[in-house]
């Protein structure tokens, strides 16, 4: 399946692809209708006020200034609290937990499954029709997590864990976006959500537990060598190759993602090479140095190797 970059409407709230999103649509529709009714009511009252001959002013003030707001505001408070709860989802103790940490300008994703912590980045795979608890954190500034087609929005605040329970109800690829201004490249901080049937989701988790693919061709082997000797391992982890880097996205299966640079470019060799050679131009402010000191063949090799990690 291609990336959401080619897909029109991958970020619409009206896709009906998750419980939170469906509730949001319901809320929007009912609020529009209710405000229309209120508007009609006020117009009617104004009409009667125009024709009335005075008298009962005290009752107008008590009724319109105290009783009416008191009742409407109480109703609205209760309604908004319950709706908000249903949009963020009731906590479900058995639901799988996915820990998502926002960094300036990318997403670290850890699936907690059977006591294992399985790491991926910039692409969030969800099981179909199953409630999942997202633990939303931030490593630096305030970000906000939002997949309009699937769920409501929730802020990611440094030093806090915000929980959001989401249930995806439609298979496919959807687009999410950081929804809180977080710095220079905030608009370039998106991600993709892939909703898979439960069995495929389990297989995906297993693939995260495995070592990265072996380098096969001479060019790929050279690429791996370049990766190991150019300092990439200080920030990036690749299962079975070098597992300590945490400052940048996990690259164990970077070639399997549909997009590069947190949902912003199609995943392919050209963009990979361009990214490594000059990330500062593609994503100003990204916490990765540009590697234009690599020779042409080495640059191509490391891009080819990363592309092969599926």
């Amino acid at each position, binding site marked *: 399946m291609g990336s959401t970059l080619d897909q029109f409407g991958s970020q619409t709230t009206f896709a009906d692809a998750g419980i939170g999103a469906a509730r949001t649509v319901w809320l929007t529709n009912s609020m529009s209708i209710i405000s229309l009714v209120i508007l009609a009511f006020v117009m009617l009252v104004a009409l009667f006020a125009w024709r009335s001959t005075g008298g009962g002013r005290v009752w107008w003030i008590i009724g319109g200034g105290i009783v009416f707001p008191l009742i409407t505001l109480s109703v609205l408070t209760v309604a908004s609290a319950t709706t908000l709860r249903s949009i963020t989802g009731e906590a479900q103790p058995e639901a799988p937990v996915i820990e998502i940490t926002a960094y300036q300008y990318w997403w670290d994703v850890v699936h907690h499954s059977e006591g294992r912590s399985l790491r991926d980045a910039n692409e969030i795979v969800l099981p179909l029709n199953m409630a999942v608890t997202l633990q939303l954190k931030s490593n630096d500034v305030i970000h906000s997590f939002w997949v309009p087609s699937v769920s409501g929005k929730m802020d990611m605040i440094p030093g806090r864990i915000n929980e959001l329970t989401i249930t995806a109800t439609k298979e496919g690829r959807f687009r999410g976006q950081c929804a809180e201004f977080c710095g220079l490249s905030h608009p370039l901080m998106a991600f993709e959500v892939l909703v898979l049937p439960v069995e495929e989701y389990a297989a995906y988790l297993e693939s995260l537990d495995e070592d990265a693919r072996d380098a096969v061709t001479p060019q790929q082997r050279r690429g791996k060598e370049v990766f190991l000797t150019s300092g990439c391992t200080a920030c990036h982890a690749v299962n079975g190759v070098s597992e300590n880097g945490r400052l940048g996205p996990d690259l164990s299966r970077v070639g399997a993602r549909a997009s590069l640079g947190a949902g912003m*470019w*199609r995943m*392919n*060799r*050209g*963009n990979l*090479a*361009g*990214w490594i*050679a*000059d990330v500062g*131009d*593609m994503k100003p402010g990204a916490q990765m140095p540009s590697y*234009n000191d690599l*020779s*042409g*063949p080495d*640059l*191509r090799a490391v*891009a*080819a190797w990363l592309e092969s990690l599926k």
Partner: protein
Amino acid sequence: MSDRDRNSGLLGTVFAILSGVIVSLAVGVWALGTPGNDPVGAAAVTAGTFMEGKFRWLRAEPENVPQDWVEISKTVRGGDPQRGATLIAQYGCGSCHVVPGVARAHGTVGPDLSGFRDRAYIGGVLSNEPGDLVDWLMNPTTHAPDTAMPDLGVTETDARHMASYLYTLRGS
């Protein structure tokens, strides 16, 4: 001296005088004109254009219609520029090149492709013409082994579309 010789001598003299008069008349008329005004030249140009039209009409056959050779030398067979622009976005050329008209293509790894049609060489190694450009897009590393531009697995059809788009990029 015979009669005949005398007659031809006379005729020659008359002819010489006549042509002298005609030439001085022409020069006189020409000299009377304001500087920069060139009635004779203008007449010549008009006559020339008229004759050229006649000649063209005489040899009017499809292959004799005047050709824009520059245009032809930059035409890529089977290439659709519009399709090419889409492919350039899909292959990710924009992460390395500035490509006018392609969204978000502002890379600074390789050369700016603005005005590419007027570039003399491709990568400094191939002359800039359709066949070579298609070759370059398919296998840059064959032509420049140390280049940073990767072989992107571009098919010939795709290369043709992209090349035809690149030839729509004119200099200023």
